[in-house]
C-alpha cells in the first residue's frame, strides 16, 4: 500500500515536471510578452529592451526555467507580467468562480444523467430509449460555443430572464467572493451552468445506458428477477452499483475538466474563472500566470484521479483486493 502511494507521488511529481517544461517552452516560443506590456505604438527599442531585461526575459531559456523551478520550490510562481499581482494569488482569486460553476453544473448533471441512462437502458429499443439516445447525441455534438450563444439568445436577449454574462452580486464567505449566495449571482449562474451541465448529462446518460444494458443481461440480474424482486429494486440496488465505476470516473474527470478548461463557456459568459484566466494569460503570454494555472490544473487532475481510485475501492470490492 505504501509503495502504491509512493509510486503515485513519484508519478505525480514527474507529471508536473514534464508539464511545466512543455508549458514553459510552449509559452516562450509563442513570443515576447513585453509587446503586451509596453505601448508598441510609442515605445522606443530602448524601452522594450529595458522591460525585457527587467522581466528576466533576456536570459537563455534554461536559465529562466531553472529560476522558475527555484522559485516554485519556495512556493512562489512569480508576479503576473500583466497585472503585477502574485500569479498564484491571482489564480486563487479566480478559483471560487470556477469552482461554483463546475460544482453547480455537476450537481444536477450526475444524478439526472444517471437516471436517464438507467431509464433508457432498462428497455433498450423502446421509444424512451430512442429519444434519450438521440437527444444525447445531439447534445454531445453541438459545440459548446454554439450552445452558449443559443442560451444567451434565448435566456437573455429574447426573454430577458437571465443576464448575458458576468458574475453579478457576490457575497464574501470563507474569505472569498461567491455568486451562489445571492439571488442575483444565481441568476448569473443559471445560463453558464446549463451550458456546462447539458453536455455532461448527455455523456453520463450514454455511459449509464450502455452499462445498464450490459448488466441487465447478466445472470445475477436474471436471478434477481426470478427471485421476484421489484424492477426498481433491481435497478437501484443491483444494477446501479455495478455500472457506477465508469460513471464515477467520468464525473471525476469531467469535473476536473470543467475546473480547468471551461474556457469557451467562461469566455462567452464573461465568467471570470480559471479557464478564462488561462486563455487570457496565454493570449497575453503572461507566463507566470499560465504556469501557475497549469501546475494547479495538473495537481487537481492527479488529486481527482486518486479520489476516483479511492471511490472505486469503496464501490467495488474487487479493486480493493488488488490495491
Amino acid at each position, binding site marked *: 500500500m505504501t509503495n502504491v502511494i509512493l509510486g503515485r507521488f513519484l508519478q505525480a511529481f514527474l507529471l508536473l515536471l514534464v508539464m511545466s517544461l512543455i508549458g514553459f517552452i510552449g509559452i516562450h516560443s509563442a513570443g515576447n510578452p513585453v509587446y503586451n*506590456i*509596453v505601448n508598441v505604438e*510609442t515605445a522606443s527599442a530602448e524601452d*522594450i529592451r*529595458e522591460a525585457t531585461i527587467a522581466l528576466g526575459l533576456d536570459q537563455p531559456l534554461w536559465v529562466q526555467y531553472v529560476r522558475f523551478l527555484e522559485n516554485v520550490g519556495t512556493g512562489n510562481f512569480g508576479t503576473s507580467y500583466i497585472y503585477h499581482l502574485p500569479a498564484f494569488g491571482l489564480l486563487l482569486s479566480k478559483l471560487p468562480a470556477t469552482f461554483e460553476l463546475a460544482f453547480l453544473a455537476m450537481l444536477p448533471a450526475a444524478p439526472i444523467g444517471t437516471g436517464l441512462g438507467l431509464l433508457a437502458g432498462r428497455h433498450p429499443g423502446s421509444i424512451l430509449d430512442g429519444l434519450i439516445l438521440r437527444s444525447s447525441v445531439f447534445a454531445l455534438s453541438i459545440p459548446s460555443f454554439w450552445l452558449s*450563444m443559443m442560451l444567451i439568445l434565448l435566456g437573455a436577449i429574447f426573454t430577458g430572464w437571465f443576464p*448575458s454574462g458576468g458574475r453579478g452580486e457576490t457575497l464574501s464567505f470563507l474569505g472569498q467572493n461567491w455568486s*451562489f449566495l445571492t439571488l*442575483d449571482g444565481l441568476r448569473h449562474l443559471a445560463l453558464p451552468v446549463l451550458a456546462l451541465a447539458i453536455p455532461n448529462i448527455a455523456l453520463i446518460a450514454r455511459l449509464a445506458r450502455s452499462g445498464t444494458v450490459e448488466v441487465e443481461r447478466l445472470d445475477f440480474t436474471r436471478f434477481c428477477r426470478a427471485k421476484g424482486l421489484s424492477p426498481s429494486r433491481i435497478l437501484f440496488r443491483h444494477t446501479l452499483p455495478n455500472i457506477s465505476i465508469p460513471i464515477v470516473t467520468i464525473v471525476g474527470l469531467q469535473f476536473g475538466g470543467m475546473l480547468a478548461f471551461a474556457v469557451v463557456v467562461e*469566455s462567452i459568459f464573461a465568467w471570470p474563472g480559471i479557464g478564462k484566466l488561462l486563455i487570457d494569460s496565454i493570449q497575453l503570454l503572461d507566463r507566470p500566470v499560465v504556469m501557475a494555472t497549469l501546475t494547479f490544473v495538473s495537481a487537481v487532475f492527479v488529486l481527482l484521479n486518486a479520489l476516483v481510485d479511492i471511490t472505486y475501492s469503496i464501490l467495488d470490492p474487487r479493486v480493493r483486493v488488488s490495491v
Partner: protein
Amino acid sequence: MGKKLRMGMFAAAAALGLHVASVLPSTAQELRVATSYKLLTLDPHYAVLNENIALLSHMYERLLYQDEALDLKPGLATSWKRLSETQWEFKLRENVRFQDGSAFSAEDVVYTIRRIQGFLKPPSGGFQAYVKSIKSVAVSGSLTVVIETEGSVPTLPLQLSNIFIMHHEAAGFRTTEDLNSGALANGTGPYKFDSWQSGETLKLTRNEDYWGGKPSWSEVTFRIIESPAARVAALVAQDVDLADFIPARDVEGVKKRGLKVESVSAARSNFLQFDLGREELPEVTDKDGNPIPNPFRDVRVRRALAMATDRQFLADKILLGYGTAAAQFFPNGLPGTSPKLVPEPPDYEKAKALLAEAGFPNGFNLSLAGSSGRYPGDGETLQAIAQNWARAGVGVKPVAVPFSVFETNRAGGKYAVWYAGCSGEAVDICLNAVVASPDKARGTGALNYGNYRNQAFDDVLAKARTIEVGPERNAAIAQAAELVMADQPVISLYHFHHISAYGGKVASYTMHPRGWTTAMQAVPSDK
C-alpha cells in the same frame, strides 16, 4: 428543465438560510459600462496604455487635457505660459481637493514628476518619455510651478497632458504594489475608487466634492469584457448601458434594437512599412523563387505598390464604412495634417508600368506580414491587399499571426514588409517615430523599423517641431508630412473608427479620437 434547475437553486439558497441580496434595479444614476479595456494596474504611472489611461482618468486628473479636437484645455492647471526658451510657468487651480480631503498644491506636481523620473523602474515605462526633458520643477507659491526644461521643448504642455497627478506623500513614493491594493487610490478626479477585480470589474462612486461640480453618475461600474460578441450581447440584453469597441458588422443589429451608436475617426493610422535597411529581404523573390535585391529601395516600386492598394475598398468593405481611407498618419482636419494628402483610387495599369520601369516587368513575390485580431480588420486587410497587388503582378503571401508573435518576428528581422500602426497625442509624434531617421540621441525614428532615411525631411521636421504650438507649427508639420509622403516610405491604409453604443439611460455620448471610454463622456438622460 432550465426552469426547474433555476427554481431548485433558488430554493437551495433560501433553504440554507443564506443572506440573499435582492436584485437591485439599477438606479437612474448608475452607469454600467462594458469595456474592452482591461485595467492592468491601479498605478497611474505604470504604463502608457489606453487599457489603463481611460479607466484611471476617472480617479486621477492631469494638469491639462486634450479635448475631442485634440486641443489642450485647462485641467488642474488653469493657465500656462512660457517664461523663456526653457522655462514654463503653470498656474494651478484653486480649491481642488484630493479624495482623501487634502488640498491640491504645487507639491503634488513636483512629487508626481519626480516619481515618474526617478522612482519607477522597468518593466513599467512610457511616461518617462513625457518628463525626460524636464530638468527641474520649482514651487513658487502654493499654486504655481515653474518647470525648467533641457533645451527648448515647445510641446511641454502637450506632454504633461499625459501625466496623472498623484498626491504627495511625506513617507516617500508609493510603490506599484501598494497602489494595486486599491486602498490608496487618491486622485482629484470626478469618481472615487470602490473596488477592482483584475480582468473583471472596476467600481467607482461619485466624488461629491469634485471641483468641477457634481459628477453626473452616482456609481459607475466597468465590466471588462474582451470578447466583442459578449460585449454586444451584454448591451443588447441591457446588462450594461454603454459598450465600447463595437465591431462594425454588429452596428446594424445594435441599431435595430433601438440602441444608439456613435463613432469617430481615430487619431491614428495603420499602414504598411517597408524594410529598406537590408540588401536582401526574407521571402522576397522573383517569380521563379530566386532571391532578388531589396526592391523597396526603389521609390518607383513603393509608389507602384501604393498605387495598387485600394484603400477605399478597405475602408468600405473590410471596415464596413467604419474607417477612413488614409494618406497620412492622422485623419485630415486634425492639427498638423495636410489637406493635400488624400488617398488616390487604385490604378493597376499605371502601377504595372511603374514596376516595369523599375525593372520588374513580371513583378515579384513577397510575404506581407501583420497581426490578426489586434486592430479592426487587420487580417482581412492583408488578404485584400494581396489581391490588389496581384493585379499589378506582385505575388503576395499574406501572413497574419497573433500580435506578440508578429512583434517578436518583426524584431527578429523575419519580415520584409508588414502592417503596423501608430497613435499618439499629436501627428508629429508619429512622423517623428515612424519615418524620421533612427537616432537614439535625438529621439527620432523609434518606430522606424524599416530604417528609412531622408535627411531633408529630418531637417524640416526637426525645425517644425521647435515652433511654438499653434497654426504656424501645424502648417510646418503638414508641409513636412507632404515632403515625406511623396517619397512613400510607408503606405497609409486607413484610420479605423472607434465605435461605441449605448442604451436609454445615456442621453448622449461624446466620442474621443484617442479612443478613451469614460463615464465623463456620457450624459445621463432625464428618464
